């Protein structure tokens, strides 16, 4: 998380932290375990009032940031989500709102479709949520779902999974291929031909589904941007999603680490605290190093993605690979130091282990991102 937030950013973070402490308690998260939606609608609306959904949308469209750099502001919210293992579709709603806004205000944007600006408004207010149907099976980046133009309509076929909140959201943004290019289509839930099958998942409150599109026909106005030319936007959306996930995981790591440091001071074995054993102290030193490193690379990559810097692709993959790997390592070591209690449902540690585990797999595993880093590195060195 930012080392030196501005006073406005500090306020944004503190407001969300207080709200989550009272509204997303560990008891509430456990209660939501079997809830089909995974979050309370009123909770989400109130969160939207705190800025959870509006930071990536420009003021002209009803959004606004606190620092002029909405993605950086959003990492502060996401960090608190991680610290509380908080419920709610933070990633898909923000990515979809940003995608709709980008298509509405970009230099090559067609005139703002009323339909899309209504959806933006609904997402910003928290009255509605969205799902981004992006990932597929068969490896990170694989895309078989197709969108083809048929007169004044666009036709979608394929299967997306895991799609966060696809069974709960009011709108689905589906990313598909059209020839060599990408097309994105906004679909209201309940559209004929769309079926969603809920999946099981490691997280207690995040919900995922298999979304299948069987020759789904929509008016051409449902297309976000232009048919077949959305590849660049899709790549940016991926990076934004990865920035949010990384910030969340760093929050979860930080909380699990704090809990375990406290445990090490309080728990006595053989007449002295765990924190006095050098073997354990050295592991805490390693964990502290992974935690600070994760903060550092999460912030640096968020800056690069927010600025659309030339090295944003490299930095975000470095961050996703590092945090994905060491987030799991850190929290699993916290479990180990807790012993058996750390594996029980009653203990809170698993709430953070769940969130970090989920996030490390979404939008590219550490191994997927190491391949990307390698491709970029080889291209740089072999060109230079």
């Amino acid at each position: 998380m930012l080392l030196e937030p501005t006073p406005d950013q500090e306020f944004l973070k503190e407001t969300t932290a207080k709200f989550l402490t009272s509204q997303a308690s560990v008891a509430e998260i456990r209660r939501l375990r079997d809830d089909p939606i995974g979050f309370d609608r009123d909770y989400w609306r109130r969160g939207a009032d705190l800025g959870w959904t509006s930071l990536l949308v420009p003021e002209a469209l009803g959004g606004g940031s606190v620092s002029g750099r909405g993605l950086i502001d959003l990492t502060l919210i996401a960090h608190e989500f991680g610290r509380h293992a908080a419920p709610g579709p933070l990633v898909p709603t923000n990515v979809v709102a940003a995608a709709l806004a980008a298509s509405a205000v970009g230099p090559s944007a067609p005139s703002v479709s009323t339909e899309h600006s209504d959806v933006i408004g609904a997402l910003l207010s928290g009255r509605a949520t969205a799902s981004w149907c992006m990932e597929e099976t068969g490896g990170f980046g694989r895309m078989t779902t197709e969108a083809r133009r048929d007169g004044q309509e666009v036709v979608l076929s394929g299967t997306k999974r895991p799609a966060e909140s696809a069974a709960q959201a009011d709108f689905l943004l589906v990313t598909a291929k059209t020839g060599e290019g990408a097309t994105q289509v906004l679909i209201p839930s309940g559209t004929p031909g769309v079926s969603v099958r809920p999946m099981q998942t490691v997280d207690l409150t995040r919900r995922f589904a298999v979304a299948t599109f069987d020759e789904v026909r929509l008016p051409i106005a449902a297309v976000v941007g232009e048919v077949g030319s959305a590849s660049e936007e899709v790549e940016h959306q991926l990076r934004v999603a990865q920035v949010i996930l990384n910030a969340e995981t760093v929050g979860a790591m930080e909380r699990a680490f704090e809990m375990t440091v406290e445990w090490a001071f309080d728990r006595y074995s053989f007449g002295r605290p765990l924190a006095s054993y050098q073997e354990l102290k050295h592991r805490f030193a390693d964990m502290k190093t992974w935690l600070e490193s994760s903060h550092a690379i999460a912030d640096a990559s968020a800056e690069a993605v927010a600025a659309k810097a030339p090295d944003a692709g490299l930095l975000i993959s470095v961050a996703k690979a590092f945090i994905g790997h060491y987030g799991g390592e850190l929290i699993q070591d916290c479990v180990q130091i807790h012993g058996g209690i750390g594996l029980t449902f009653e203990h809170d540690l698993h709430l953070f282990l769940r969130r970090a585990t989920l996030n490390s797999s979404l939008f590219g595993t550490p191994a997927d991102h190491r391949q990307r880093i390698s491709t970029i590195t080889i291209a740089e060195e072999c060109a230079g």
Partner: protein
Amino acid sequence: MTAAEVEGVEGYRVRARSWIRSNLEPADFTTLEAGLAGELSEAEELAAIDHERRLQRKLFDAGYAGISIDRDYGGQGLSPAHQRAFNEELTGFDYPARLQVPNFSPCAAVLLDFGTEDQKRTHIPAILKGEKLWMQLLSEPSGGSDVAAALTTAVRDGDEWILNGSKIWTTGAWWSDWGLCLARTNWDAPKHRGLTVFIFPLHRDGVDVHRIEMLNGSKEFCQEFLTDVRVPDSDRVGDVDQGWTVGTRWMFHERMLYNSPLITAPPTGRPTQGAVSPVGVARDIGVLDDPRVRDLIGEARMLEMVEGELQERIGTAVRSGRMSDQGAAIARLYHGVSAARARSINFEIAGATGAAWVDDDGSAAGRGIDFLMRQSPCIAGGTTEMARNVISERVLGMPRDRTTDRDLPFREVPRGPAAGADSRS
């Protein structure tokens, strides 16, 4: 100079960039790497040192030496941010790489923190001009990580001190001019309360410098034997028996490594032993398309880039007081572990060529030797175990390990059979 007269960092950067581009040669670290690998003759090494002394003088004459050091001592009186801007512009250009650690940090840094006005006015300008190169006489053969257990002894004789003992792991002592030395001045006090710091020239009677051959052939490290070395009391740094106050700060500067505001070096691409590109190794072996090799290349780049960001974060946090000085141990630990991992990665990519090679093997040649030396970044400059102690005890506040030597007079502290039966003074 008032704050208003201090040149803005961005303007300074532009001026520095222009000077660097028209006055410095492109970086070529082949000599440096050859030296670290023990492949240079003594004459070649000395020629390389002379070249760096001239480079340092060039920086001084142009007003780019000691950028953040006070003008009273020959520096430029600017901020660490100016030094960082200069360092960033230095990427890709030749600079006095051997003159940074330990010459500027920790040696010059300790003099600036604890030296008398006379000491600072005499020695800092000579360091800035490249006239005198300093090294640290800290570790001892008997001590390892337990630096405060120094046995090298200084006994007062009128206005002088007489030093006897041995110091080890002194980088480049054979071509250095002055040393900063931690010595025991009181055997009856507990170990941390009987130490004092001295400075003295190395090329003199009573100081025997021996070069140590490392397993890869490098002879950069030395051991010194001090026999009745007389040092005037005016060359004492800090108070008598208060050397641990100096020593604690000394080791902080050591852990800061290249993050110190006294260091002139590009933030990335600085030459470190073992910094061979895994892409080069893979290309020269013909395995660039192997997905397992690509995974290793990705891991190596990840570790390297995270290190840069971590150094930046820790540096900022320490400078702004959000983290104690001891936070530098976090960056030190990361560096040791990731540099060791980088050597393992290169060795693994090299395959059988890692074990047996010919000169034509390019970047893959010699990776097995790097692997044999793999632990050196986890040992040199304070071991990673000591860094872990510092992080857990000083950053996280965990209880210190129980020791038996803290309150005993030092002469009664057990030193084990390895110290020999007659080693007590």
